[in-house]
């Protein structure tokens, strides 16, 4: 996946560091609070929201269970409309295809529409190696790119930055790669947006090649759909001569009519608006309008692995709205970087281990990056049962570690099973705990434990054992029940 995240530590380690960043916590608290209120407001306006969510889930389930048929249909429609279709099994192949397409045009730079798929495959880094500059044109992506930073949210990748930080990044970096910001730039969001407008306009007007993703790809007509706000998407999709779109294979919708469901679900769930400012659709090549050289790269990159998991495949319904991030108490406190992927938050915790497998430390730890409170599942516009999938993936991680040298946790669990299976052993253990509780004196929580136990105690504060257990109190007050 994206080179920017290679070698990430496990979630719990990264989270601990992120929790120390109080500025980021304040920024996130403010931003997610704003968006949660807006989303709730516009969702409440519709009296058929649950019916829409069910329809969204049902359409996606239909697509996923006939994905081979729909992809072939999409390929046919696209080809008929004048687009060239490419298939990419993984990130490396997709990057190779895009790089050679850009090279064939002779262009040394491309403008980019915000796209999760191209971030997922680390396309910008691959283009850079090939000597091609990729300019991100979404405001938040621009902030991340200019700040040499990593995205921390699906919709608003610079959500961890506040206006003062954004101003500093613009003043420091913009002039190095193009039109500098005006002198006297303040941190007023309106002025910051204006600086981005001027900076990027020059790039839009001269660009020969654009790269996008797609929110939806309609099999029946070969129509691609991009949903956006700023108009940078329209600029990229309209002005250049060549357009290359990298589309995950799960983005297919059967018919144009299906848009009626998703164009109601997505804007309300993502930015909390009745409708996003701009949606563009294009069907291959339109003579005299827009790019006359149109390519679509259909991307697997782990999606067929997720599809093979009967329980896990519903994660492929995801339409990248990020509502689950905005309601997640864990995401709100640790931010997006700790998840080690362009897909953070609850959806990232179930998507990454399925797309990338569970071999790395970070992917093994992600299913545990949740308190299982269930808020994510409640807001998901396509009814992905995120908490259930987290538990499912925890089981997978545990199963993969069976056999070999048992871990400390496995030994402790074996010991606990032995102790709980006989009431006499349990009472003895409680006696032991009472004694240790008295030994701890007036402290009411256990802090750091020594040695291997620290892995457990570092992540939580446990209450000290009580001076007397309920069972022994009952025996003392009411006599032995037997």
């Amino acid at each position, binding site marked *: 996946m994206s080179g920017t995240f290679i070698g990430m530590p496990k979630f719990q380690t990264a989270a601990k560091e992120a929790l120390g960043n109080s500025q980021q916590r304040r*920024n996130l608290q403010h931003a997610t609070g*704003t*968006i949660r209120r807006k989303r709730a407001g516009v969702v409440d306006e519709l009296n058929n929201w649950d019916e829409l969510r*069910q329809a969204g889930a*049902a359409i996606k*389930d*239909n697509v996923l*269970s*006939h*994905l*081979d048929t729909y*992809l072939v249909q999409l390929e046919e429609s696209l080809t008929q409309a004048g687009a060239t279709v490419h*298939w990419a*099994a993984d990130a490396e*192949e997709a990057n190779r295809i895009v790089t050679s397409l850009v090279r064939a045009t002779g262009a040394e730079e491309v403008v980019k529409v915000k796209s999760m798929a191209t971030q997922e495959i680390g396309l910008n880094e691959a283009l850079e190696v090939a000597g091609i500059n990729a300019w991100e044109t979404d405001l*938040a992506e621009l902030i991340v790119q200019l700040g040499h930073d990593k995205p921390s949210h699906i919709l*608003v990748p610079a959500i961890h930055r*506040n206006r003062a930080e*954004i101003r500093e990044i613009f003043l420091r970096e913009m002039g190095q790669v193009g039109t500098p910001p005006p002198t006297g730039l303040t941190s007023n*969001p*309106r002025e910051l*947006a*204006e600086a*981005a*407008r001027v900076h990027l*306009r020059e790039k*839009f*007007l001269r660009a020969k090649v654009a790269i996008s993703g797609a929110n939806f790809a309609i099999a029946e007509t070969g*129509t691609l759909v991009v949903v956006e*706000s*700023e*108009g940078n998407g*329209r*600029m990229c999709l*309209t*002005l250049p001569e060549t357009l290359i779109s990298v589309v995950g294979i799960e983005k297919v919708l*059967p018919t*144009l009519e299906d848009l*009626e*469901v998703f*164009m109601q679900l997505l804007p309300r769930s993502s*930015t909390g*608006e*009745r*409708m996003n*400012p*701009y*949606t*563009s*659709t*294009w069907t291959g090549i*339109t003579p*005299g*309008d*827009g790019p006359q050289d149109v390519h679509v790269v*259909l991307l*697997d990159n782990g999606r*067929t692995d997720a*599809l*093979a998991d009967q329980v896990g495949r519903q994660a492929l319904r995801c339409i990248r709205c990020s509502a689950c991030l905005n309601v997640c108490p864990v995401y709100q406190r640790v931010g997006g970087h700790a998840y080690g992927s362009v897909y953070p938050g609850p959806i990232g915790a179930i998507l990454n281990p399925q797309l990338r497998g569970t071999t790395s430390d970070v992917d093994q730890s992600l299913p545990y990056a949740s308190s299982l409170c269930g808020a994510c599942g409640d807001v998901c516009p396509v009814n992905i049962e995120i908490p259930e999938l987290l538990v499912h993936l925890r089981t997978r991680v545990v199963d993969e570690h069976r056999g070999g040298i048992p871990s400390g946790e496995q030994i402790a669990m074996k010991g606990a099973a032995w102790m709980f299976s006989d009431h006499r052993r349990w009472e003895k253990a409680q006696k032991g705990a009472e004694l240790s509780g008295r030994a701890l004196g007036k402290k009411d929580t256990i802090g750091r434990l020594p040695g291997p136990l620290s892995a457990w105690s570092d992540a939580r504060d446990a209450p000290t054992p009580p001076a007397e257990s309920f069972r022994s109190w009952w025996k003392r007050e009411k006599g032995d029940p037997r």
Partner: protein
Amino acid sequence: MSTRDDMLTRIAAALEGADRIPPPQREYGATTPLPDIAATFVERVEDYRAVVERVNPEGITAAVAATLTRATRVVVPPGLPREWVAALDGAEVVADDGDLSPDELDHFDAVVTAAAVGIAVTGTIVLDHGPDQGRRALSLVPDVHVCVVRESQLVGDVPESIAPLRHAVDAGRPLTWISGPSATSDIELERVEGVHGPRTLHVLLVSTDHPLPPA
């Protein structure tokens, strides 16, 4: 094996034994009844901080002129009724011949177009880029977009909007859905109007069936 065949084989293998789920039973294109569809449309478009005016058919020319008093160069699609821009005083009006480059378009102050569909509940205007709307770049690069929508083009909500747009998609034309002026929520998730698309959206809603109530 080609990557294409390999991917299709992997998908077939992943789905082996899985239930093939049929498309949902859904009444597509259902209507959303509204007591006053035009009033809802106006209210919702204004909510995005666009300017909306209601005019009679014979009032379009004067309203366009009143809106563009400060424009010096205006571009229009080839199929736009020319009388709509007939009263522009002192402004150069250029009908797009398809050859204007992005740079040349950047030297126009404003564009005037018609529309294909207006969606009341979401306050959305859809362009299907027919002759009175022009190619996409026209309604994108100039900073002011004056868009003329007829009341007869209004539908209640998104489901009703697809049917009137289908013929354009089947003909290979693009669509542009516009809900207010260009905006961003990327700084602290607070909405700011005006980034790359037109920063001013001025909508003229033309009554088609009944006269306007007295002001």
